[in-house]
């Protein structure tokens, strides 16, 4: 049996103070992601996707419940511990790339390693290696402004992977890409997941991107609505996803 890399138990996130109008963004959410899994989180806007990602990625604190990542309970860690934990165990890919535009692609990718105090001798082979995996070796010396959106997202992915985190958290990584680049990025992520055992948690509202995942959790109004697992080929899975989304829409409109 494989170990679980993310373990979320009864997590609640409430916005607003007690005296004010409170809003439950997450209500009793529980799920696990196993090592080497590629899990998607879907749901209509406002369902709590981003809140869930923020809570799992330690950028925000859950109001109650327990979250374990790579066997460590992050719910009662201090700010500094959390920062170290992020730089150690998590890899981020954001919709708007979030590359530092004043650093070259190489320096951007090297940054997580530098932060961990890896010596510069060891940094270079690691960066080259991950850049090769993502097919961006030729643009390492360039600045982010001079490369395309697809290349930027690959650079961001390289940065997320270079320190071999326990899990990569991707927040709408294809959101700012055209369909060709989006497809190619998702292919790459699928490849990384299948051949390099990278665990990925992907938040998206795009059914096509989601169809690359192995399993999808749907959330609706802060609760887990449904969970589907890929059984057939990608085409079928895509159709399955569309069906669930249609279900969700009909619930919402009724």
């Amino acid at each position, binding site marked *: 049996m494989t170990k679980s890399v993310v373990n979320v138990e009864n997590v609640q996130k409430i916005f607003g103070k007690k005296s004010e109008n409170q809003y439950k963004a997450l209500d009793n959410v529980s799920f696990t992601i196993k090592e080497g899994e590629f899990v998607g989180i879907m749901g209509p806007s406002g369902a709590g996707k981003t809140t869930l990602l923020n809570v799992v990625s330690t950028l925000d604190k859950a109001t109650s419940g327990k979250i374990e990542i790579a066997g460590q309970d992050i719910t009662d860690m201090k700010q500094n511990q959390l920062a170290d934990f992020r730089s150690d165990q998590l890899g981020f890919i954001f919709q708007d790339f979030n590359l530092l535009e004043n*650093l070259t692609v190489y320096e951007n990718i090297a940054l997580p390693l530098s932060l961990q105090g890896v010596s*510069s001798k060891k940094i270079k082979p690691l960066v080259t290696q991950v850049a090769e995996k993502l097919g961006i070796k030729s643009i390492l010396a360039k600045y982010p402004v001079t490369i395309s959106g697809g290349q930027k997202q690959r650079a961001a992915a390289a940065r997320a992977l270079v320190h071999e985190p326990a899990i990569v958290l991707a927040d709408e990584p294809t959101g700012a890409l055209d369909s060709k680049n989006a497809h190619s990025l998702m292919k790459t992520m699928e490849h990384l997941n299948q051949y390099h055992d990278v665990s990925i948690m992907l938040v998206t509202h795009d059914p096509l991107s989601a169809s690359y995942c192995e399993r999808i959790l749907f959330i609706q109004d802060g609760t887990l609505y449904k969970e589907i697992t890929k059984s057939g080929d990608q085409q079928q899975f895509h159709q399955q996803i569309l069906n669930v989304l249609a279900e969700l829409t009909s619930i919402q409109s009724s």
Partner: protein
Amino acid sequence: MLVKLLSGSMKKMWKDYLVLLFGLTISIAIFYMFETLAQNKAFLEANALISSIVFVFHVGTFILGLVTIFYIFYATSFVLSLRQKELGMYMTLGAKKGKVTQMMFLETLVIGIISLIIGLIVGVGLSEGIARLLMSRLDFSGEGFQPLYASSLWTTVIFYMILFLLTAIVNAIRVARKSVLELLHADQKADNKVIKGWKTFVGTLFAIVLITFGYFAMINMGELAHVGVLIAAATVTPGTYFFFMAMLPFIIKRIKGIRSINEKGLNAFTYAQLDFRVSQLSKVLGTVAMLIALGLGAMTAGLSFYHNTEIQSSLTHSYDIKVHQPTEEELTEMENWEFEERNLYSYRVTDDGVYFSKHDLQANPPMIKEFTGNLDELTEEVRVENNLSASIYTNDEETDNGETMPEQWQTALRTELLANFYMFGDRSLYILDQEKWEEINAETQTVLIGKVDNFTDYTDTLEEIENRHLQLALEFTGEEPLTTGSKYANYTSLKSLANGTIFMGLFLGVAFLMMMASVLMFKLLSSATADIGRYQMLRKIGVRQAKLKKSIYKELFLVFLFPGLIGLVHVLIGMEMFSFLLIEPYTKIWIPISLFLVIYGLYYWLTVKMYQRIVLPKG
């Protein structure tokens, strides 16, 4: 309609505009302050110890003008960076290029005019306030100084109107040249210019050659005079800018190029921050360095003139304190003073002469200052040769009665024992042995002379003694002299002469350092908003807050270090300029310098804190 749109979004970005207005206003106010002095010829000539002071101020205006031009061009380009994205958006919605260009022109100009009006009001207020404060601290009447000086007002208005017109045109041209897309994506564009190797080399060479020439001129100011001032101004100023435009980016690039440094922790980010806007930064840092040089230089020169009065007044006087016929009160007061040496001599005064007892003089021969003929040390202290064998010595050349008094003894009596023309009129001086002394039919008086560690500690009592001496002189000579020629009298009259110069130095020092602070502040705050996203991102990928803070400390330290260093070296070499005016231009130079370092350090710390508040994510 466009006007409406623009004024609407100006309101939205009022914080950014406030920063800009503040920066421009201070620059205008300081320029005006400088001109209130520079153009008030009558005041300058009446109050300065430097003969060609008007000329010096002309050169000063030139340097300040140059520095201001750099600064204003940088500051107004900020309007463009605030605006271009929005202008691009208007164009995609159908606004014509001509219209948008025109708006940019008008906006730059309007901001300029608003800041000009506020700046002049602030300038008049600051001139008045600072002048008044300094005058009261220095006991300086400062007659003729006018905080509201019409011709300076006009110069400032004309100078800045031309500058703002020019910058408005430049901004408009820049907008006109850019395509809609370039405008829209302006904020994502890195202006990381690739610096060509040969350009760096030529720039660095220029910087070194120009600064060397300037330093040479400053060191040899005595011989070069006016030409020297011109050479120094025309070489050091561009040399400083060349240094920051060519050499500094090169140095940072080099540090960044060292892998083991760059790839350590957040260093890559810190140096990238520095390196990234290197061309913008270089002009600002050049300006800051020049302002530090001017401000600290003016202050140091002012204080140097101040300390110089003490040195000058000790030049001819060995003893700090000379008291004729000390009163009981004075004697008790002096009981508490720490004397390094204290002597008491008896004398008698008749209508024709002042007679000193040889016995007393030989028991404690006084010291005098003798001229050495050596420029490095003008006088030296020697004890009078104890060689009085005759029974009568006199300085009266027409009498045969007695030997001619040796030169040293004449100096000792006149200067150190204050038996001079001011006190005793044209009475002759005598030194008599005991027998002859007894024959003089007059009351015995005493004169006390003493050396103390720091004679300015006792100026209150010395002033009273001086006043009593003036009365005494009135009794002896029948008229009250203007001075008694004592060290204290020399000191006060030299000080009142130097006060005007000291006032100018401190006034300008404060003004320039204020402008320096506003320039640095402007640079920082105007670029801080762009940095927020970067720090947010770093937090997300797991950089500890403490590390982010450290990175800011480091980045700003380097930003502060280089102009501070260059400015300081300029001042240290620049003080040589005064060596032909002042005896020791470097006396107590540590006072203004440590004062500056403390203020600069505090300012650094404050800036770091403000910057951290803007860019660091909360929580």
